[in-house]
């Protein structure tokens, strides 16, 4: 009805002050909600990109023996159960059409034997390097050295692990054959004040009595593209060295992994010998022995240290669907494996991120509710101030629905003008914030940003969500004032004059 709009418009213009008050609340609310939505989306997208595409994959396959899903950051370095029948399990995983990459990982804790100080600990991912870089092409940034590939034995030490070792034993790890890069040293530390170290001596840290000491040459120093403070606890080691270190051998004193891997292992033993005795600069350490000298038989059915399979799926497929399919296949073939989400595998870390998200969402909801309360209040006051006018319209023949429409139109016009302006300005602000490239100061803030840089994200869906929130605020705010206005009778206009 044209008349409703005309009167509504004139009312808004006449009560400019009040219109501006409601308008600014709508504007501010829409702006904050837009930015809030964008921060939440940025957090989600950042987590997806950084964890799923660079570290954990979308799905993690673990052994059915593994009771706790929290497999990455296990409390007290508790070991993760190995996956039995790994080759069959892998076959099932790779056969699933949704799966793009499947990376078996042997995750474990080793003791680092240091020459002149107490032993320390490190967390390792035993992997096939080639597969690792195929699965997570931009997961790791090279800091020093050259990234190992193929059957190269050795270690990609994370900057985080390097710094811990330095703090613990004043040892500064560098890739084999390379010098100390001064600018990578902690601030105030000079090259000659540290002990250069280009290989690690690891002693397997497992519940079986079969571990060995191994020497792992440092091939590269790497930094994770995001969450380095967190993921940097893990250094990468070739799977052969890992298995040797943890004592996964069969009767023939060779790890049974896959045929291909077995070939590599034979090769690796030679390499290790070479490394130990051929390199004049490194003094063999008393505790360390070659892999061939003291190999023992594995006591359980597991013949490899692989305890995780990190799976990346086609982005068009959903994680829950794929998990369901995988678990059905495992069950059908009676394989002792189960698929879980990356979030479940991350345990508390993912929970922290979810908490951040919930806090943000709560903040947006508070803005939402405050906006509703303030607008409801202002409109209710306006309704009461307009009792005479409304009563008079009713006396002349305006129906209650006319009065309702009048309020809806007035608020709606404000909502469209100021609310959409708020969404627009919010969108610009989000774009501006992205340009600033704000860096996370610590791990917690990094979780809040979903990555190293603050990258709020506004998709069409988010803008749609913002508009929906605006509509809800408008509709909800106007209900109570309308109820008041509808109660106004013609007599209210008359008895007050």
């Amino acid at each position: 009805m044209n008349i409703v709009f005309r009167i509504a418009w004139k009312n808004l213009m006449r009560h400019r002050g009040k219109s501006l008050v409601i308008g600014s609340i709508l504007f501010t609310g829409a702006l904050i909600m837009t930015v809030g939505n964008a921060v939440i989306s940025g957090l989600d997208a950042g987590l997806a990109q950084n964890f799923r595409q660079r570290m954990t994959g979308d799905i993690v396959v673990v052994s059915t023996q593994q009771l706790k899903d929290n497999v990455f950051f296990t409390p007290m370095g508790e070991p993760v159960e190995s996956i039995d029948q790994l080759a069959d399990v892998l076959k099932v995983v790779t056969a699933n059409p949704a799966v793009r990459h499947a990376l078996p990982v042997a995750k474990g804790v080793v003791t680092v034997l240091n020459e002149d100080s107490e032993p320390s600990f490190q967390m390792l991912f035993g992997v096939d390097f080639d597969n690792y870089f195929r699965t997570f092409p931009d997961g790791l940034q090279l800091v020093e050295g050259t990234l190992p590939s193929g059957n190269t034995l050795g270690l990609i030490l994370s900057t985080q692990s390097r710094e811990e070792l330095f703090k613990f034993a004043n040892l500064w790890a560098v890739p084999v054959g390379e010098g100390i890069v001064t600018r990578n040293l902690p601030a105030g530390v000079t090259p000659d004040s540290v002990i250069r170290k280009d290989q690690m001596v690891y002693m397997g840290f497992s519940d079986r009595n079969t571990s060995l000491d191994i020497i792992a040459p440092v091939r590269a120093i790497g930094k994770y593209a995001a969450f380095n403070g967190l993921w940097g606890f893990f250094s990468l080691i070739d799977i052969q060295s890992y298995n040797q270190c943890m004592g996964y051998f069969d009767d023939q004193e060779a790890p049974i992994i896959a045929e291909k891997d077995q070939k590599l292992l034979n090769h690796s033993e030679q390499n290790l010998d070479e490394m130990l005795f051929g390199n004049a600069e490194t003094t063999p350490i008393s505790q360390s022995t070659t892999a061939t000298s003291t190999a023992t038989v594995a006591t359980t059915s597991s013949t490899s240290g692989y305890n995780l399979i990190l799976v990346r799926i086609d982005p068009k497929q959903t994680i829950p669907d794929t998990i369901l399919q995988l678990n059905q296949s495992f069950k059908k073939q009676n394989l002792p494996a189960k698929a879980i989400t990356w979030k479940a595998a991350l345990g508390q870390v993912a929970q922290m991120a979810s908490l951040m998200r919930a806090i943000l969402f709560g903040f947006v909801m508070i803005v939402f509710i405050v906006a509703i309360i303030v607008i409801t209040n202002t409109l209710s006051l306006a309704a009461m101030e307009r009792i005479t006018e409304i009563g008079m319209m009713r006396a002349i023949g305006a129906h209650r629905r006319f009065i309702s429409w009048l309020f809806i139109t007035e608020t709606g016009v404000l909502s469209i003008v100021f609310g959409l302006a708020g969404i627009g300005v919010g969108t610009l602000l989000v774009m501006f914030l992205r340009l600033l490239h704000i860096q996370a100061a610590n791990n917690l803030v990094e979780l809040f940003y979903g990555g190293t840089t603050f990258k709020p994200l506004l998709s069409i869906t988010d803008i749609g969500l913002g508009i929906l929130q605006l509509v809800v605020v408008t509709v909800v705010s106007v209900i109570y004032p309308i109820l008041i206005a509808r109660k106004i009778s013609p007599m209210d206009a008359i008895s007050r004059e």
Partner: protein
Amino acid sequence: MPIIQLSNVTKDYALGETLVSALRGVDFSVEKGEFLSIIGPSGSGKTTLLNIIGCIDTATTGSVMISDQEITKMNDEGRTDLRLYKIGFIFQTFNLIAVLNVLENIEFPLLLMDKLSKEEIRKRAQEHADAVGLTQYTHHRPSELSGGQRQRVAIARALVTNPDIVLADEPTANLDSKTGATILQLMQHLNETQKTTFIFSTHDPEVLQYARRIVKIKDGRIVES
């Protein structure tokens, strides 16, 4: 068949603890086309009576029939329809919509009806503005008009829908006698030409010369009809 028929109508107002009886059993009827004046001292119940006939207030007891419809049994929707389509009400205090100009105020009930075209509405409103002598003021806001001019806007607004009944509560009370006379003459003219039923209240004996029938009210009772 009377267009308005009241039987034993009472109206009590709660005034704090006590009940004020504004009407104490009113019986009276009005035929179509009458030009009737309700006279009585201040506080006698004139406004209350007109408000009940005009579907603005409800009777406490009794029956009120307008065009054969029992309004005391109607819901808000039905009574609003009656106010819009059948009754034109001229209030003692004009009651115009402040944000609308003269022409828009006159158009307002027609716009609420939503039956005529925009052009037709504009034309009718203009005619009624001319009829009450406000041709030059159609684009003025109520606040820019004198009391008499405002009352004329209210009259034009009450008449623009061609209602069966026009109720006017002391239409001249806030006007000087000259303006008051002009307005009563205007109403008289419309009654004669359009056969509209007019009921107006007054406590001013001078106004009575315009009435063709006089109803006297005192203490909420009709004392002479």
